[in-house]
């Protein structure tokens, strides 16, 4: 199985690059926080110097910078431990992430699934009926989806469906399968639906003109068969390669959506941590997001190889 072996080598090589990248991200974040003027304790409420001194000793903030850096990195590398939040006293960063991740993941994954289904359907129809009314309509809607910022779309949806029609709850987390999820997921997925529809259309248009589709047609396959078994597989390659960047955007998108709908997710904690200068929490969340992104990109590359027999390592 030399192909599998090659693939394994590729995965290992990528992982070898990934780990230093994550450490670089952590170092960069740490450096940014430290280089900036001020710190967690330079807030509006001034602490008495003696108390601040005690707290600094407790968290090891009185040591030299390289010692602190070493301690932080060692904790992360050795135990995957990002320490304790400064703001939320006594709560470990790992625990905060474990608690808030399911919220973000639920909204993000549902939004991605929804945008895949709607985007691929709309994009394929647009490509199959190129230059028809369907094509123009779906592409205009897609352009609208790309252009309307989610922080405008979200409140407008709330205004219509919650405050005027009283159909759906306007905000708050209500557990996993709940009506509270509908508006956040719709808000978040609009942009991706639009992107995926455009990518699908472009990919399908290219594939539909290719020789192997002509061959499939000339063999007398039904149109459904040609489209589903042959065209979609090739036409969806751009969509597959978009999955990686999409996850990155999805993460930033959830930041806004969690803000609008007051969801206790990762993004909301990240914004709070940034505003509070809660160093361990910032580093923890940034590292977590970087890891998630890099792993996702790796998965996309592997999926790409499986789908497209022309890709070789």
């Amino acid at each position, binding site marked *: 199985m030399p192909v599998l072996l090659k693939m394994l080598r590729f995965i290992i090589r990528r992982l070898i*690059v990934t780990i230093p*990248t994550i450490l*670089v*991200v952590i170092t*960069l*974040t740490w450096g*940014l*926080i430290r*280089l*900036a*003027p001020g710190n967690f304790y330079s807030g509006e409420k001034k602490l008495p110097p003696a108390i601040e001194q005690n707290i600094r000793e407790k968290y090891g903030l009185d040591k030299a910078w390289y010692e602190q850096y070493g301690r932080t990195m060692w904790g992360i590398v050795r135990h995957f431990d990002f320490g304790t939040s400064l703001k939320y006293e006594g709560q470990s960063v790992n625990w905060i992430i474990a608690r808030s991740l399911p919220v973000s993941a639920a909204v993000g994954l549902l939004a991605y699934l929804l945008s895949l289904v709607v985007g691929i359907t709309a994009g394929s129809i647009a490509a199959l009926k*190129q*230059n028809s009314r369907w094509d123009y309509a779906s592409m205009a809607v897609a*352009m*609208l989806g*790309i*252009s*309307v*910022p989610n*922080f*405008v779309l979200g*409140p*407008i949806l*709330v*205004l219509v469906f919650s*405050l005027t029609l009283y159909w759906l709850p306007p905000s708050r987390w209500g557990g996993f399968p709940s009506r509270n999820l509908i508006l956040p997921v719709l808000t978040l997925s609009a942009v991706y639906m639009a992107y995926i529809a*455009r*990518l699908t*259309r*472009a990919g399908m*248009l290219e594939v539909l*003109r290719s020789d192997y589709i002509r061959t499939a047609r000339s063999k007398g396959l039904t149109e459904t068969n040609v489209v589903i078994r042959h065209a979609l597989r090739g036409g969806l390659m*751009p969509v597959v*390669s978009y999955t*990686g960047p999409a996850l*990155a955007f999805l*993460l*930033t998108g959830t*930041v*806004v959506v969690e*803000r*609008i709908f007051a969801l206790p997710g990762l993004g909301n904690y*990240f*914004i709070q941590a*940034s*505003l509070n*200068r809660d160093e361990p929490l*910032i580093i923890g*969340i*940034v590292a977590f*997001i*970087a890891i998630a*992104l*890099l792993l996702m*990109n790796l998965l996309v590359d592997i999926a790409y190889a499986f789908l497209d027999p022309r890709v070789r390592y």
Partner: protein
Amino acid sequence: MNDDGPVDHPETEPKGPALTPLGTLPTRPVSPQDPDIIHVPPEAAIAEADVRSAERGEGIKGTSLWEDAWRRLLRNKLAVFGLVVVAIVTVAALIGPPMIQQATGYSPDYIPTNNVKLIKSFPPFTGPNGSFSWTHPMGTDNAGRDMLARVLQGGRISLFVGIISTLVSLLIGVSYGAISGYLGGRLDNVMMRFVDILYSLPYVIVVIVLLSMFRRQTPEGQLILLFIALGSVSWLTLARIVRGQVLSLKNQEFVLAARATGVSTPRIIFRHIVPNTLGPVIVYATLTIPQIMLTEAFLSFLGFGVQAPKSSWGSLAADGIQNIAIFPWQLIFPGVTMALTLFSLNFLGDGLRDALDPQMRKV
């Protein structure tokens, strides 16, 4: 956009205007949407055009790339729509606020402190006693400030941030890509690997950390920080595009000629090669402006971007969302204006791409 391979771009050579079968004149306007014209190799097109103009007894006269592109752009209705809207919004943002101040006495930051009854949020086209009035076509915000003036003033900042940050990213991306592509070899490898690594970083997250940590005391300082932050994260794709272009250009005769006459390497890169990559770069830059404006709005919405008393569409929307249930116009007007502008910029960018480079028609 994942192929870095050399792309063939015909823009250095004059191109014939129409691509109908040999010897026939175009019977219908050839639209850039026409699937047939995309796959005609440019050399064939040039040859055809030459043959045809020669048959007509004219000297060979190619239209320049820019004339050609401009004509194709004007044929694209959506792109023209985009161009018109962008022009209107830009002009309104520039001359609107002073004109409103002339007409109604409301500057974007004017709070009617001399009349307490006016310090509240009026709906669009409504006067102080609930009657119809032209004074505030978009209503007022909580402090009684004119929304129209504020939206136009916010547009100034949003467009300004979009354009300046795009210029910053152009500067970095074009230089980086051109140097990497031209010098090639191991350096190219290292430089592109670096871009790959940066690609996989959650850059908006890093920008938020940067902006929140280095938060400036003055709005101007924060604005400059914003330019640097947005520009320095959006050059990656540009660097790849330019590198691909340079790879296909650097072995052409004009570069060889420049080198043979002893032109220095930096001069070859920036005076001979970079100007030839302009087409794709312009297209990508046009599409970068809305992206950056969206990111700026997103950051301002979260409170990390433009700081009060300055306002952009993003920060206006953030203010408006507080009162969405009672005063929806405070969100809707800045939001819709922004969406319309981005919509138009995207159409314009797409149209420019089709016009300047029909072969690159993708997504």
